[in-house]
């Protein structure tokens, strides 16, 4: 199993964190970065599932067009 590379807080935020956050100990900053990463991954997974599940409620005639528009 390949371990996922942990991204730093600056990488998660796309730039330097605010000064008061930068002043936190390294492990606390990394814990915050991990929480942001977890939230991003959870959101991506929820989106993928919702896209598939949502199709069940789309009228059959429209399903192909919607599938194409969403990119499923």
């Amino acid at each position, binding site marked *: 199993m390949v371990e996922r590379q942990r991204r730093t807080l600056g990488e*998660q*935020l*796309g*730039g330097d*964190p*605010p*000064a*008061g*956050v930068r*002043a*936190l*100990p390294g492990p*606390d900053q990394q*814990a*915050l970065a991990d*929480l*942001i990463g*977890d*939230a*991003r991954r*959870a*959101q*991506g997974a*929820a*989106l993928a599932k*919702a*896209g598939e*599940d*949502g199709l*069940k*409620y*789309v*009228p059959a005639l*429209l399903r192909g*067009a*919607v599938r194409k*528009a*969403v*990119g499923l």
Partner: protein
Amino acid sequence: MKADLDARGEILKLARVLGVPPSRLDSLAAVPVDDLRLLRARVTDVLFDANLPTLRRMAAASRLIPAPVVAKIAERTFGPLLCARIAGLVDPARGVDVAKRLSTRFLADVAVDLDPRRANEIISGIPTPVVVSVARELAGREDWITIGRFVGHLRDSAISACLEVLGDAALLEVAFVLDDKARIDHVVRLLPSSRFGGVVGAAADSGHWESVFDLISHVSPVRREKFVAALKDLPEDTRASAEAAASELGVELDLS
């Protein structure tokens, strides 16, 4: 003390954005509130932008589906978090049409996760009775933070209608955690003067004097005088309690 309370509110809001219990963010307790506010805005942007291409395609696809079906999919499949992410990407008129078909409870759940900055047009287009129902639902949950995040994005008529269903104590709670404190004076301007005494009385009942002092510190001199007059009308022992709290909090207050 005020800075501590503001920081706690910010940490609670950030915890919501990240979907974690506030205790996971205990390490942020010493961070200045302005930096916490900045951090929350940055994290919100990161998460809202994280799946933007997919969210945009979903928003585009929703145009192909009748609004009642979109509402059904929203509640049964997407859930509040994804709806909150997509809301800012759909055509506002379409978004309002769908929102009107959602249950109050679900709309309140969406409101918790929504970034009002990104869905301003939809928020301002939602009919007042729907806004009031959601405000009532959120007040029932004592979710003052969410109500406070929306105040800056509602039409005055909707704010006035919400003020009618929010009690005096609730009003104090919302004002205390309002995202945009500069809006307080505007909101209080929409509040009938007859309620000023009730607002002050609510602070007296709860002993949460800092909330009313905070409110007073953000209103115009004219309205400040009205609140001070309401404080002066309190029974003597309650007035003494207000003055003692003001002294402890470093607030200048003369009720003699």
